[in-house]
């Protein structure tokens, strides 16, 4: 939003209930609620196990972050590094492939008129209403029948399908790729694939970043699919790995500090990416709200 609009909005008189003080106090309380657990995690990850239990939770006591990190990375033959790497493989690989597939499908649905186009698009849109967790168990049953469970593929392959990505790419292609440009390229003798690769893909690249970002975060956060697919802990993504430590906590209390530090390490890069790429996720969110 730009400044003149702000100035104009100021004309609205404040009412009895919506005083400037009340507005800001409510916002501060809300921010405190949303940030406090994150702050707790940051503080807790610098503590020793005894301090974690005995010192006040919302402030530092004898910080030893480096020592905790060293213990985290050394545990069980560097298994945590493996988990982070797996998460990057699942999320990065799945989101990259998924973005390519969404882009081509969205482009086809936007540019070519063919019989059944709206039916195909409707089917894809409808599947947005079927949540991924509802499909995870049926996919597991199918994969178990085919002997494909407990492998990288069992988590990676189901993650590459993103109906929302197709939707976003279609809407964006319609808005950002002028038909005349495509026709002109055809007259110049360019093939359909070349038009897509050299002209269209560049024009829709902001949408592609948005699709990639959403899918990356979606796969990174996925828990149910890897939980039912994987038995070998060397294949776990970091979320499932930390959960498996949490499940062993009653037998091995030493894991507590590792879970806390591990949570911190797995969350920080995600928050950084999110904050630095915020204009892209905002584009995706507002596109979503236009649809309904």
């Amino acid at each position: 939003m730009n400044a003149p609009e702000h100035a104009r909005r100021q004309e609205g008189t404040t009412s009895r209930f919506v005083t400037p003080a009340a507005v800001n106090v409510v916002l501060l309380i809300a921010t405190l609620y949303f940030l406090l657990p994150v702050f707790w995690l940051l503080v807790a990850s610098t503590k020793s196990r005894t301090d974690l239990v005995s010192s006040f939770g919302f402030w530092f006591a004898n910080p030893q972050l480096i020592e905790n990190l060293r213990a985290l990375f050394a545990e069980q033959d560097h298994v945590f590094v493996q988990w982070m790497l797996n998460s990057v493989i699942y999320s990065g690989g799945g989101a990259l492939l998924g973005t390519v597939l969404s882009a081509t499908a969205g482009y086809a649905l936007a540019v070519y008129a063919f019989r059944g186009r709206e039916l195909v698009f409707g089917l894809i849109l409808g599947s947005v209403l079927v949540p991924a967790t509802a499909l995870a168990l049926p996919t597991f049953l199918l994969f178990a029948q085919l002997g494909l469970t407990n492998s990288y593929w069992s988590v990676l392959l189901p993650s590459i399908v993103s109906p929302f990505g197709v939707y976003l790419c279609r809407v964006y292609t319609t808005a950002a790729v002028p038909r005349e440009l495509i026709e002109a390229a055809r007259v110049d003798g360019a093939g359909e694939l070349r038009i897509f690769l050299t002209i269209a893909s560049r024009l829709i690249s902001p949408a592609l970043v948005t699709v990639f970002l959403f899918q990356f975060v979606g796969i990174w956060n996925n828990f149910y699919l890897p939980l039912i697919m994987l038995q070998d802990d060397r294949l776990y993504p970091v979320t499932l790995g930390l959960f498996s430590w949490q499940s062993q906590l009653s037998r091995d209390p030493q894991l507590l500090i590792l879970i806390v530090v591990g949570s911190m390490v797995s969350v920080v890069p995600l928050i950084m990416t999110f904050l630095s790429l915020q204009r892209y996720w905002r584009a995706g969110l507002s596109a979503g709200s236009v649809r309904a």
Partner: protein
Amino acid sequence: MTTTETRTDRRTRHTSGTRHRRAALWFLLPFAVPFVAFYVLPVVYAFAQSLQRISRGGGSYGKATSVWAGLFQYDRALHDPDFVASLVRVAWFSLIQIPVMLLVALVLALLLDTQTARLRRFHRLAIFVPYAIPGVIAALMWAYLYDPRLSPLTQAMSTIGLDPDFLSPSHILWSIANVVTWTYAGYNMVVMYAALQAIPTELYEAAAVDGAGELRIALQIKVPLIKPALVLTAVFSIIGTLQLFTEPQVLRTITTSITSTYTPNMAAFNAASANDYSYAAALSLILAAVSFVFSFGLLRRTTRGEQA
């Protein structure tokens, strides 16, 4: 799109129609193949599986074979007190948690849209941060904040005479609701805020000149205008809460208040873990159907209301 074409366009399209159809097919295929393989086929396979049951010849240790069972598994699900209880529990959860979360999100979005709010950008980001945190990690963090052995929250509250037990059987559902609200309120807030930003200011300039306060402008002008965003957030919240799994599954590690069939998804997972695949298939299909019917129904009802 086709309506804007000129006559010459249509002629060139006619001659190159087959070529375009073939191109469309090639562009769609890379998506269509995994879509069918991982969206359509699993559902079909699970449906086939759900119509069977295991029969053992010669006592319970005999050879196991799958036999046709019709709707036996579905009948079993509807008479399974644990599964029915899990459905009722999640229904309650949705009825309370979704309105609370969306109201929090709406109030915050409206506050951020007022002129008097300071540090708008900072607040918006802070409220959105939890969405970037994986559900497992969010649940772990709150688990430690609920756990009386570790929690600075329960410590602080006991000094002022309160002694909350977040993990008791009667409170745990609302402790889970708090985790879910904390994680997704910011996401919903951003969707609503984006919709608010898209409203042309002229629409409430006149009201402001007439002396309408911010509260009246918010309730009578802004909220009705962002109805599509509200419907969207409601639909996705319904889909999300019916699938409730991660948060209770994680909190289960620190409390016995959560059973292995606490939510429908956990019941399905539990059946699959016990190799009761046909039953697991039936349970997840029931859940998928319920969530599709509710979200689709809400979409249909609200869009029809707009046209009327």
